[in-house]
C-alpha cells in the first residue's frame, strides 16, 4: 500500500515537474512564440497577401529602426534604468543628420550622432550626479528635446532628395534605407550591442546593477561611471538608429520618432527583459521588436482600422507580459 502511494506520489511530482519545465521554457521564449503565433495567424487570415516576398521585404525594412532603439533601451533597462527620450532624440538627431547632410554631404550625417550622444550624456550626467531617477530625467528631456526639434525645424521637414549637390549622400541613404542595406546595417549594430552586452565587463556590470546596485558599488565598481557610460552608449546607438531612420523615410520631420519610446520599451519587455533589470537578451529584444512590426503589418493587411490596431497591440503587450514575467524573481509587482 505504502509502496503504491510512493510510486503514484512520485509520478505526480514528475508530472508537475515536467509541466513546470514546459511552462518555464514557454516563458523564456515568449517573444519567439508570440512571433510564430502572429505569423501563423496572419498567414491563415490573409494568406499570400501577408506571406509574400514583397510584404516580408517591407517588414525587413520596418524592423531595423525600432529594433535598434529597443536594443539601446535594453542596455539601460537591464541595469534598472529607463530612457523615455529615445523617440524625441531619434527625431532631433535625424534632423541634425539631415541638416548636416544637406550642407556637408556624407560627413554631415555625423551631426546626428553628435546630437544623440550629447543627449545621452545630458541624461546620464543628470541621472548619475544629481541623482534624479532616470524615469523623471528622461521624461523631462523627452519633452524638451521634442520642443528643441520644433524650434530648430520651425515646424518644417527637410527632404534630402530636394537638396542640390547632395548626390553621394542620397546614394548612401538610398542603399541604407532599403532592403538589404537597412538589414545589413541593423545586423552590424545588433552584433555590436550583443558583444557589449554579453562579452564585456561593462555588460556584466549592467546586469549586476539591475540585481543589486548597492553591492556592486560596495565592491569598488564606479557606479556613476557605469550610469553615465550606459546612457552615452545608448545615445550613440539611438544616433545610429536616427541615421537609418532618415535613410528609410528620406526626410526629417518635426514628428519623427514621436511615441517610439513606448514601442521600443514594449519590444524590450516582450523580449523578456523585466523593467526591474538584472537580466535580458539582445536577441529576444530584436525578436520582440519584429513581433510588434509583424503585428502592426498583419493587422493593416487584414483590414483592421488603425485605432483598433493600437488596441490589439496594447492587449498583446499586457498578455505577453502576463506570461513572460517571472514574479518570483522580481519580488513584488508594482
Amino acid at each position, binding site marked *: 500500500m505504502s509502496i503504491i502511494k510512493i510510486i503514484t506520489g512520485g509520478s505526480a511530482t514528475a508530472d508537475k515537474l515536467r509541466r513546470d519545465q514546459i511552462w518555464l521554457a514557454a516563458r523564456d521564449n515568449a517573444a519567439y512564440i508570440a512571433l510564430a503565433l502572429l505569423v501563423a495567424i496572419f498567414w491563415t487570415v490573409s494568406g499570400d497577401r501577408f506571406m509574400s516576398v514583397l510584404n516580408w521585404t517591407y517588414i525587413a525594412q520596418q524592423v531595423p529602426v525600432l529594433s535598434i532603439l529597443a536594443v539601446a533601451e535594453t542596455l539601460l533597462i537591464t541595469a534598472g534604468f529607463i530612457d523615455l527620450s529615445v523617440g524625441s532624440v531619434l527625431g532631433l538627431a535625424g534632423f541634425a543628420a539631415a541638416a548636416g547632410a544637406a550642407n556637408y554631404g556624407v560627413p554631415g550625417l555625423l551631426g546626428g550622432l553628435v546630437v544623440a550622444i550629447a543627449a545621452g550624456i545630458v541624461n546620464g550626467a543628470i541621472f548619475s550626479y544629481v541623482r534624479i531617477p532616470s524615469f523623471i530625467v528622461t521624461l523631462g528631456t523627452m519633452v524638451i528635446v521634442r520642443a528643441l526639434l520644433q524650434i530648430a525645424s520651425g515646424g518644417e521637414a527637410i527632404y534630402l532628395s530636394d537638396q542640390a549637390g547632395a548626390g553621394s549622400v542620397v546614394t548612401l541613404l538610398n542603399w541604407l534605407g532599403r532592403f538589404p542595406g537597412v538589414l545589413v546595417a541593423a545586423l552590424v549594430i545588433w552584433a555590436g550591442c550583443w558583444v557589449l552586452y554579453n562579452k564585456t565587463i561593462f555588460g556584466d556590470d549592467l546586469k*549586476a546593477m539591475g*540585481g*543589486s546596485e548597492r*553591492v556592486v558599488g560596495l565592491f*569598488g565598481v564606479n557606479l556613476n561611471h557605469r550610469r553615465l557610460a550606459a546612457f552615452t552608449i545608448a545615445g550613440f546607438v539611438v544616433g545610429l538608429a536616427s541615421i537609418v531612420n532618415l535613410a528609410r523615410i528620406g526626410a526629417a520631420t518635426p514628428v519623427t520618432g514621436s511615441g517610439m519610446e513606448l514601442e521600443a520599451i514594449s519590444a524590450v519587455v516582450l523580449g523578456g527583459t523585466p523593467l526591474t533589470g538584472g537580466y535580458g537578451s539582445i536577441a529576444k529584444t530584436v525578436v520582440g521588436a519584429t513581433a510588434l512590426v509583424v503585428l502592426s503589418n498583419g493587422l493593416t493587411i487584414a483590414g483592421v482600422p488603425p485605432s483598433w490596431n493600437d488596441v490589439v497591440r496594447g492587449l498583446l503587450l499586457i498578455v505577453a507580459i502576463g506570461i513572460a514575467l517571472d514574479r518570483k524573481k522580481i519580488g513584488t509587482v508594482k
Partner: protein
Amino acid sequence: MASTNVLRAQPAGAPLVEAVGLAKHFGAVQALRSASFRLWPGEVLAVLGANGAGKSTLLKILAGVFPPDEGSFLVRGQEVHSHDVGVSRRLGIEMVYQDLGLVPNMDAIYNLFLGRPIRKFGIFADRKAMLAKTNAVIETLGVTTIQDPTKPVESMSGGQRQILAIGRAVTWGGGIVILDEPAAALGIAETEQVLKVIEDLKQKGAAILLVSHNLDHVFRLADRALVMFQGRTVADIVIEKSNVAELTSAITTGAL
C-alpha cells in the same frame, strides 16, 4: 569608561591592525563612542556585544565603507588616512558582510571577481581564466557543494553562498578577514562547513575579526574576545581563561 579596557593578552610581535579611539555618529545617533583593539596575525578576535553596541560600525570603518569621526587605525604600523573600500582592500582587509554582499542574479564567477575582473583586451571579461580561478578557489576551500559556478548565486543554498563570500575574502585578502555573523541563518551541516573554513583560514596565518552572537562558535574559534557596550570597547578577554558566564556578563552589563 575606556579606561576600564582590560588588556590581558599581549601576543608577541607587532600587531597587524591597531585601532585607537574610533568614534562615529550617524545624525543624532552616536553609533560608536570609542573603540580600540589590536589584532595579531594568525589569531581570531571575536567582537561581542548586544545589538546596537557598535560592532558593525566598527567593522565597516575598518573595511573602508565610511570614515571615522575620531580616532585612527593602523595596518602594519602605518596609519590609514583615506577611508575607502578600495584602500582597505589594497591594505589586505576583506570583509564578509552580514548580507554577504553577493549580487543574486549573477553567477559565482562574477561575484568572486566583483570589482576586479580578469580583463581581455581591456574591456572584455576573460571568462575562461575566471572560471579556472573560481574552480581553484572552490577546491582550496574543500567544498564540493558548489557544483556549477556559472549558475546564479540566488539558486544556491545559504551555506554555499556563505562559503562563496568567505572564499572571496580569502582569495583577495592580504591576511585580514572580517566576518560579520558568518554562521547566522545556516543549517547544522552548513555551519560546520563554514566553521571549518574559518579554522583553515586561521591555520594559514590570517588575522580574523569575527562578529558572532553564538558563544559556542566563539569558544571554538576565537583566541580573544573584544566586548563592546554602548559604542565602547570595554574588555579584551583571553578566551582560554574565560567562560560563558563571564562573557555574558560583560556583554550585558559592560563590566567584568
